[in-house]
């Protein structure tokens, strides 16, 4: 009898991210009848496509024991650059997306190189890149939003084309799940965060892998920025401030450890949706923005407390 009870308790602790998510979902459904409407759910999905790309990049950086503070700024850079190219240079929007992603990749590569080769702490290297990317975004937009007229970038959020950004985001999630579970790359990333010296002595070129996680994070952040620009039909240098902290919070709620070596793609996404649901329901209920932040913080504390209990058990 007591043994079974223990098991239920363990399950509760083990899957706390899922449980919080489901509980929140039910609460939201009860609190607002608009919550379960197709339009609202679709809005959440479209809204979260960009942030989720960022969370995935961030998760891999965190798995190696690093952190990438630059993602919010790189999102702004991606958004600004794409809009600038489309509006002022008449670049086809597909090509603009690719160029923005290459820019993000380059920014991430610089951060990663500083971390891997110059032995910067991830915090410091990405802090510098955060400032640089934000500055670059503001230079490109000259401080004011760039409005994209007509159907260009906005096509990727249109129903007629089957919401391409949802398809792309879903594909990226699947790819990351596969990378983490089934590839040598995913395994090495998690190993780096556990004990980088042991990994190096096992004959793995750790520096290349370190650079790659920051590069991927930068690239996905730029893509996330493009998604946001597409929804608003506007490129802007001031969007996504603080997005890096939301991304870190999503990873942590999903069970990732900032010390590295621990974390899961799917659970990080659940973490992102937990944050999204909180914002959504409070918007529906017309709660002002500031109390939302308080509740977000409390959810992070609860999630991490539950994880600590699991860790001590081990």
């Amino acid at each position: 009898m007591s043994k079974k009870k223990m098991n239920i308790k363990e399950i509760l602790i083990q899957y706390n991210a899922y449980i919080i998510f489901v509980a929140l979902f039910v609460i939201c459904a009860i609190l607002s009848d608009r919550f379960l409407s197709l339009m609202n759910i679709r809005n959440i999905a479209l809204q979260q496509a960009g942030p989720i790309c960022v969370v995935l990049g961030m998760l891999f950086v965190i798995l190696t024991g690093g952190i990438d503070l630059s993602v919010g700024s790189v999102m702004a850079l991606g958004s600004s650059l794409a809009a600038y190219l489309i509006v002022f240079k008449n670049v086809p929007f597909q090509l603009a997306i690719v160029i923005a992603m290459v820019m993000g990749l380059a920014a991430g590569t610089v951060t990663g190189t500083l971390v891997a080769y110059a032995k910067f702490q991830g915090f410091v290297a990405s802090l510098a890149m955060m400032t640089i990317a934000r500055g670059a975004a503001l230079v490109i937009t000259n401080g004011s939003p760039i409005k994209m007229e007509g159907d260009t970038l906005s096509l990727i959020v249109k129903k007629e084309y089957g919401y391409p950004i949802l398809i792309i985001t879903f594909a990226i999630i699947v790819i990351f799940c596969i990378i983490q579970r089934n590839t040598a790359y995913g395994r090495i990333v998690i190993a780096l965060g556990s004990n980088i010296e042991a990994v190096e002595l096992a004959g793995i070129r750790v520096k290349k892998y370190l650079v790659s996680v920051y590069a991927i994070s930068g690239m996905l952040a730029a893509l996330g920025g493009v998604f946001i620009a597409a929804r608003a039909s506007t490129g802007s240098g001031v969007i996504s401030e603080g997005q890096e902290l939301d991304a870190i919070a999503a990873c942590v709620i999903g069970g990732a450890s900032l010390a590295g070596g621990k974390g899961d793609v799917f659970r990080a996404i659940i973490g992102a949706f937990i944050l999204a649901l909180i914002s959504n329901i409070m918007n529906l209920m017309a709660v002002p923005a500031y109390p939302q932040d308080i509740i977000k913080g409390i959810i992070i504390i609860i999630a991490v407390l539950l994880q600590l209990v699991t860790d001590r058990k081990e």
Partner: protein
Amino acid sequence: MQNSEYRLEMRNITKHFGGVKALTDVSLKVEPGEIHALIGENGAGKSTLMKILSGAYVRDSGQIFIDGKEVKISDPKESKDQGVAIIYQEFMLAPDLTVAENIYIDKLSAGKKFINWKELRNNAREQLERLGFGDIDPNTKCGSLSVAYQQVVEICKCLTRNAKILVFDEPTAVLTFSEIEKLFSVIKKLKEEGVSIIYISHRLEEIFELSQHISVLKDGTYVGTVKTKEFDKDRLVNMMIGREMTEMFPERHAKIGETILEVQNLCAGMVQDVSFSVKAGEVLGFNGLVGAGRTETMRALFEADKKESGKVIYFGKEVDWKNPKQAIAEKFGLLPEDRKKQGLLLQQSIRMNTTLACLNKITKLGFINHKSEKEFVKETLASIQTKYNSTEDNANSLSGGNQQKIALAKWIAADCKCIVFDEPTRGVDVGAKTEIYKVINNLAENGVAVIIISSEMPEIIGMCDRVLVMRNGKISGEVRKEELTENALIKFAMGV
């Protein structure tokens, strides 16, 4: 009941880590004002027992009495409040603070609003003088003191907290001879003052010089307590090991073949002009004092550190490895000396640890085949008799001996033809040691060239076909199996 004849009594202490029993029914009785030696092989449970006393670990069962009164001790503060203090090998001093600040670190202002620096310094000086170290200036920064003096500061710190049970864990390991003498005078003085001292050491001479009683632990169990006066070294060693040397080192029937690795004039940092070679099936030992350059030589060979010059001939052709990856690709492996820091991913699964150096074996185009990986891991671990529950358990759920086997399995899984074992049995209990020796013998019998770096004389003598001794970064001598004695090795190691 208050006036017990024992200062400290630990009764039937039992402690598990995961599924591994670290201590079973261990008891320890220490009188007031005595020096009580605690001995046992590595992994016998000495440190675990002391960590339970200090509150760093919580016991599964058993009782602790201090001055006849049962105490709980479930965290470090309770232990401190009961007057228990432990002097670790690595001191808990803040190097940038002064001696006086360190001694009174937890009561700098003595309850007042501001710190009275003059009083603080005078008090510190008094404490130091009491131990006979008036020459330490309370104003110097701790980081600039010699290790021995730092130890004295650490002792003073414990004494200001009214420690009545003081534990020394291998205190002389890092000291010079004259420093050891000073430390002993301090320990004897503390004993005169009525402090109970638990003294952990591998050096039997020290134990016979200092202690009144000796308690012996073996494989996590309590063997017994004896009066030092009525005992001699040989009987003590028997009690400690409880088995003969020949049982420890299993026989090897390896055929020594072709030369596999030849190193010529290797230089790297402190390593100067080191040349040697090792053949298939041969077990070559590297002995010498700690810091003589043995580990550095092997790390340079493996390209974990940069080598400056020298020629490496491997399987008859000159190689120029640029990083460990290239060395491993040519089946050269290195088991690092520090299992926890360099060898294992403690928080990750046994499976992941085992295949880390041979990911190409279990992947196709970068994709892992989980099923064949599991099979492969099970086979590899079975071949070296590793005990574990599931390949998915974390490495840190295992005992030291089995952890070491996982670290070793990595190189076996990678089919290495030449493996360097740096301190292969450090922190491993006696039974597991023999098993690791069996694995090494097995490798040699299968034609692997083996290099063992070890500071443990019995291990070097019991295992090696040939031993090179290093001193100050150079090879100072070579001893063949027939001439292998501790004396011969020490002569080369010390340069006499």
